[in-house]
């Protein structure tokens, strides 16, 4: 009996130790699981705000802008993203008096993305038309190197309402392929205007030399059923802090190109603290008017009404992360010539809409 009690006591202690160990393991595992949960995405509100002064043809324009972007991830595969744009354009009437103007309100995109697998993402809703690289990647004012968008920017770009397949994957260790194919429906709904289009873009990125080349195609499925196509090129040399980009686009409204180079003074040996934050930008661009163009359509899309070439030069100073001061000068060379000045500041913000997790 005594032995039995002793055996029972030992077994009980063993069970207690076993139970304690399992409890510790459970606790530790829960902590590991918590760490994993800390990396789960949360909704955030990001975007940019800026204030620019533009002088075009001697006319001064004040252009404040705020562009909020809402990102709402859901589960492991879904993302809802939306961007609105509030852009003011204020000018003096007849060159004197108070500044007057309007604030344009637009919804650039309101889309839901489903990441099917590493190769395919399905997007539905209103999205930025994937034509070239400027519209999707370089348009935000805190990203673009020169405040003025390229002359050919309206060709093939804008927003589309419909569905899109897109993705990027590695073909081999030296090359990645990225693509987008979309269909867009005709819409005249306020803030959701869209043309009936089908198109796509394919790009090859070579990580070694950091070169990207690609092409875009678009077919209008309404009215004149015209085509548009374009090519893009980007290169970041490894040894020099230089960023080279270029696009060519052609549609029935016209054609043209832009070539832009941005050099960061990282390697300059004097005034290092200031110079490493400074960037010099130069851009050359040309626009050639299409043969059968409608003047009202050119105005609607913001395209020049004649052949134009325009060199631009600019300086960017990165004050701190997300805060950039810019100034640029350009010369419009068309049937008449004039100067184009811009100066302003752009700020990118990002606010969490949930617990951010430990850093």
């Amino acid at each position: 009996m005594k032995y039995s009690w002793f055996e029972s006591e030992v077994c009980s202690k063993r069970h207690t130790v076993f139970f304690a160990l399992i409890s510790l393991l459970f606790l530790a595992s829960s902590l590991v699981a918590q760490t994993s949960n800390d990396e789960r995405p949360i909704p955030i509100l990001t975007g940019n705000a800026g204030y620019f002064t533009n002088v075009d043809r001697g006319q001064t324009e004040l252009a404040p802008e705020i562009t909020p972007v809402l990102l709402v991830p859901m589960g492991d595969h879904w993302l809802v993203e939306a961007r609105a744009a509030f852009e003011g354009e204020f000018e003096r009437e007849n060159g004197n008096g108070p500044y007057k103007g309007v604030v344009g309100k637009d919804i650039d995109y309101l889309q839901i993305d489903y990441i099917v697998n590493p190769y395919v993402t399905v997007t539905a809703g209103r999205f930025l038309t994937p034509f070239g690289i400027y519209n999707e990647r370089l348009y935000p004012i805190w990203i673009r190197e020169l405040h003025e968008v390229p002359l050919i920017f309206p060709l093939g770009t804008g927003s589309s309402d419909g569905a899109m397949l897109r993705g990027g994957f590695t073909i081999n260790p030296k090359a990645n392929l990225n693509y987008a194919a979309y269909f867009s429906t005709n819409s005249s709904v306020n803030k959701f205007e869209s043309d009936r289009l089908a198109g796509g873009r394919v790009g090859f990125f070579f990580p070694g030399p950091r070169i990207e080349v690609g092409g875009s195609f678009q077919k209008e499925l309404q009215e004149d059923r015209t085509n548009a196509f374009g090519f893009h090129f980007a290169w970041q040399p490894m040894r020099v802090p230089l960023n080279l980009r270029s696009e060519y686009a052609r549609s029935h409204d016209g054609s043209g190109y832009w070539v832009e180079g941005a050099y960061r003074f990282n390697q300059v040996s004097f005034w290092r603290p200031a110079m490493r934050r400074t960037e010099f930008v130069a851009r050359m661009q040309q626009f050639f008017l299409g043969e059968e163009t409608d003047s009202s359509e050119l105005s609607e899309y913001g395209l020049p009404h004649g052949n134009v070439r325009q060199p631009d030069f600019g300086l960017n100073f990165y004050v701190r992360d997300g805060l950039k001061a810019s100034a640029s000068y350009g010369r419009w060379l068309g049937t008449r010539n004039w100067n184009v000045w811009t100066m302003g500041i752009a700020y990118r913000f990002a606010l969490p809409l949930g617990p951010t997790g430990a850093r």
Partner: protein
Amino acid sequence: MKSKIMLFAGILMLAAAAIAADPPKSSNSTADPAAISTTTASAERNSEQAENIRAEGEKRFRANCSRCHAAPHKFPPRMMATIVRHMRVRATITDADMRYILAYMTQ
């Protein structure tokens, strides 16, 4: 009887612990980068692998993200996970690049 109940409870908790320890299958969870923190036995080797992941993540960040914009400061991990998912769609970054960049930006 009591010991059997406790043994059964222990096994149940062990199973629960195993499930809880299994990280969520997320498109943003890093395959190779995540493996270093859980599967490597040696701390030294773990540290070396972490450094390799960091270097590879930085390289891929410069190749992909720096093509368009300057490097931002690092946001908290859960914000960064959202931003990287957004950029994966926007800039058609590959799955592998995204995992390395996320690991680099959250270290």
